[in-house]
């Protein structure tokens, strides 16, 4: 050390030096939780400093809601019941809300590929913490920022005639959080295998649109041909968009008779061969899928060259 012991602060520094000895970190849950916490916090810090990303991620749902939503409402007008009281934008709003978290969640997982290319992943992987805590931190981080993105979009609910009802808003946030978590887990699972950022982008772009289109975000899920019905039931997004639309429709301030008619025609329950999938199972499927993909990711990251 080059510090001279002339002023008190330098003397302080020396005391610090004396206190430090070789330290072997304690192994334990608390240490792993700290790791989860810091990986999560890093996502938030990076999201905060990257405003451009937050804005661009909102452009696409914005276009879908206002341009496509307004345009299609003229086409869909005739088939909607009492079209004067009901806006097509209200119908697609839950689906577009899901879309607002889709990109952010998957691309936040993509930063793993980025980290690998720029070396930071090595700093993470050589740390004496369980691989699980790294992956969990990452999934929670992506879920948090994606949900935050969804909350911004939730502020635009008024334009789609969706009321700002606290129960409704909190339920929607809860479902967005669940969806974001599963999507991030999906992204992390992919990122564990894919070594190049371009490849990751291309592959996720390829998968995002089918996920979105099959979720019933833009059309009701009843009366579809069998092959399409089967595909929609395989899409995890379906099991969040359905419940979200259902809860939005039950909070609309419409005459009861109209409300019942709309719910029946436009927000039918998800069925498996005629059997109605209950809400808890619907959301449970999403949660289990997320956890399963997260486990695969943990396994992938535990491998060594």
């Amino acid at each position, binding site marked *: 050390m080059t510090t001279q012991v002339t002023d008190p602060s330098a003397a302080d*520094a020396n005391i610090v030096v004396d206190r430090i*000895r070789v*330290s*072997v*970190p*304690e192994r334990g849950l608390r240490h792993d939780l700290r790791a989860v916490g810091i990986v999560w916090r890093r996502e938030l810090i990076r999201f905060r400093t990257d405003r451009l990303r937050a804005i661009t991620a909102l452009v696409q749902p914005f276009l879908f809601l206002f341009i496509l939503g307004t345009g299609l409402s003229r086409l869909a007008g005739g088939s909607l019941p009492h079209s004067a009281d009901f806006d097509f934008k209200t119908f697609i709003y839950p689906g577009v809300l899901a879309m607002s978290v889709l990109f952010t969640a998957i691309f936040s997982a993509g930063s793993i590929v980025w980290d690998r290319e720029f070396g*930071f992943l090595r*700093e993470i992987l050589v740390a004496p913490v*369980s691989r699980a805590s790294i992956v969990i931190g990452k999934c929670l981080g992506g879920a948090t920022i994606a949900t935050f993105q969804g909350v911004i979009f939730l502020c635009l609910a008024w334009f789609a005639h969706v009321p700002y009802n606290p129960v409704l808003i909190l339920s929607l946030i809860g479902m967005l959080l669940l969806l974001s978590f599963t999507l991030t887990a999906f992204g992390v699972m992919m990122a564990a295998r894919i070594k190049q950022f371009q490849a990751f982008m291309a592959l996720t772009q390829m998968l995002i649109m089918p996920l979105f289109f099959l979720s019933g975000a833009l059309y009701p899920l009843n009366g579809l041909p069998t092959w399409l019905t089967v595909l929609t039931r395989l899409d995890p997004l379906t099991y969040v968009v359905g419940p979200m639309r259902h809860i939005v429709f039950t909070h609309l301030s419409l005459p009861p008779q109209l409300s019942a008619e709309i719910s029946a025609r436009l927000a039918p329950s998800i069925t498996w061969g005629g059997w109605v999938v209950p809400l808890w199972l619907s959301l449970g499927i999403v949660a289990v899928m997320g956890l399963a993909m997260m486990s695969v990711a943990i396994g992938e990251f535990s491998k*060594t060259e």
Partner: protein
Amino acid sequence: MPESNAASLAARHLTGLADPRSREAAAVAAQADARPDGRPLDGGSASDAVISVSGLVKRYGDVEAVRGIDFEVTRGETFGFLGPNGAGKTTTIKILCTLANATAGSALVAGYNSATSRDAVRRNIGLVFQDTTLDTYLTAEQNLRFHAEMYGVPKAAVLPRMRQVMDMVGLWDRKDSLVSTFSGGMQRRLEIARGLLHAPRVLFLDEPTVGLDPQTRSSIWAYINDLKQREDITIFLTTHYMDEAENCDRIAIIDHGKIVAIDTPEALKASVGKDRVQIQTADDAGAIRALADTFGLDAAMHDGAITFSVASGEEFVPRLFGELSIPIRSVSVSRPSLDDVFMSYTGTTIRDAEGGAGNEFMRNMHKMRSGGRR
């Protein structure tokens, strides 16, 4: 060396009894003992080796990066791997640090097998990689804080320790700047600070001072030497700088994936045996002839002076003045450098070897592109 090691060991045990944290650490170590693959940490076993490597081999497809190496590093030692780029230094470090699996052979770090007890090894080591591993979108402080949390540095110690290591590399006043605004040298310094942040038992430095200015290099070495005095730390480093290798207690010279020599810098230089003598005379051609005739020496002109090697230069100089008839204007005697050592063991200078390694690398790249990996 062994005596001071024993003393520091005893000191550790004494402080260990007084300090509850050390006791916890000992409990953790004891727990690890119960594992079938783990070996005791402070067991006072026959060898005092912190790193012990035997028969290590690593193959990447057809390329054999490490071809069977054995060595031990003692507690408290600064051990250097000296060799050209592509000699297998980084591959060895990667295996020791649990980032790669060996094809054959074993490596024990701090008493744990680096292949089977990865977490235990990771808890005992600090790492500074050759390539940058900083998050350039975070500030310097955020990078260090990330590291502190990942390595479980006690919360109260995080801030003073961060300040200490950043002061050491002269970056404390830039702690709130984004790392992306740092120059290459500053990033390197920050990484070294980060490697020391959690006070590891073994510190691995892969080419630690590549691309740094001489001033920073020497201040980093001053810190490393100071660290050795103060703490029970073992340092393992790779380098292709000869002057840097001089700082090590022991050096292994590695070439083409094999260790060709392993000893203290002094012993290695002594093993070359001969000092280099350079003289300037009134009649150089005549002097070269006279040296051959009188002493049987093979002298040649290098750097504008007659240059030759003899066993002990200082004793030879008086004889030279007495017996050489041609007037001598100046004499210089120099001890063999590590350059000479490297030359004598590998038959080439490190710079030439690097050129060769480069060609080999290009050939392999070409092979991989044209023939596929498997």
